């Protein structure tokens, strides 16, 4: 078969395996246990900290972290936030719509390199908006937990979310 015939056949036969939810899927109170979990490595931490210019040596100097009473490098809290957020995206916001803001974010304790974090969310509010046709506004409460299930951070996030119709 010619390559263009193969591609045409794929286009004709393939069933889309879609990802993400839409505005209508977010009934208030609906809960999500997000996928995967993530071990935060020293490589992640140093790359994130250096590329974002976050010059606190707790995140990049083990000698300094130990001198301040930590057993290992501290995970840059913004890396922790972004990783928990990242794992929540498929369930919450991959369906489309801009990220508007975050409120009430609390870090519950410092997380050290080598720890594994998980993410879960609950829909706390959903409303219509006149500002953009075809979208609504959804707010979720997201929690990041450690391997024992204890919270390491939580926050409320608000997005414009695309409607199905």
């Amino acid at each position, binding site marked *: 078969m010619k390559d263009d015939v193969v591609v045409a056949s794929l286009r004709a036969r393939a069933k889309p395996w879609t990802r993400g939810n839409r505005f209508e899927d977010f009934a208030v109170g609906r809960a999500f246990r997000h996928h995967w979990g993530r071990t935060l490595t020293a490589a992640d931490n140093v790359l994130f900290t250096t*590329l974002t210019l976050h010059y606190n040596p707790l995140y990049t100097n083990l000698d300094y972290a130990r001198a301040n009473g930590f057993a290992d490098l501290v995970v840059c809290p*913004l890396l922790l936030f972004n990783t928990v957020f990242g794992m929540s995206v498929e369930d919450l916001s991959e369906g489309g719509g801009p990220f508007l803001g975050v*409120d009430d974010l609390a870090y519950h304790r410092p997380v050290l390199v080598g720890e594994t974090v998980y993410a879960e969310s609950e829909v706390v509010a959903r409303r219509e908006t006149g500002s953009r046709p075809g979208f609504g506004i959804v707010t979720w409460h997201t929690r990041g937990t450690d391997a024992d299930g204890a919270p390491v951070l939580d926050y409320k996030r608000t997005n414009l979310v695309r409607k199905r119709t």
Partner: protein
Amino acid sequence: MRQATARTSIDNYFEDFEPGEVIAHARGKTVTEMDNVLLTNMVMNTADGHFNEHRMQQQSRGIAGFDTRIVYGGISFSMVIGLAAQDTGEQVLEERGMDKIRLRAPVHHGDTLYAFTEVLEKTDSNRSDAGIVRFRHYGINQHDKLVYEGERTVLMRRRTIQTTSS
């Protein structure tokens, strides 16, 4: 330990900040495709509007600024806080939280970010060697357009340990 001491600035301790002051931070950063795609993928943010240029061009639906990849907002505001971090984070012992974070405008590859900080509040903590500072950080782009604002609360080292509980 001996080597680790005295390797940070001398002018960014708890005592050095006054509520009401506004700081313009020294450096800017041009957010590159490398920054956005690398960090977005590293934190496993699966929204391909941050890493699929073809789809963004095909499916923009006419929304201004959304016809090309958008820098993931968590990366752009981490960059703004990073630009403020040597001044307002080098002596931080614990980040405590963030609030009222608002992403005002999309950021694209090639945009340059600058950071400003307003000192909102200082309070004592339960530690004699550190106090709590609440900042509001702002990020603007190369066109002086506000792209980010948000509060951040930190536990910051004091230069001098408090001997009385005032």
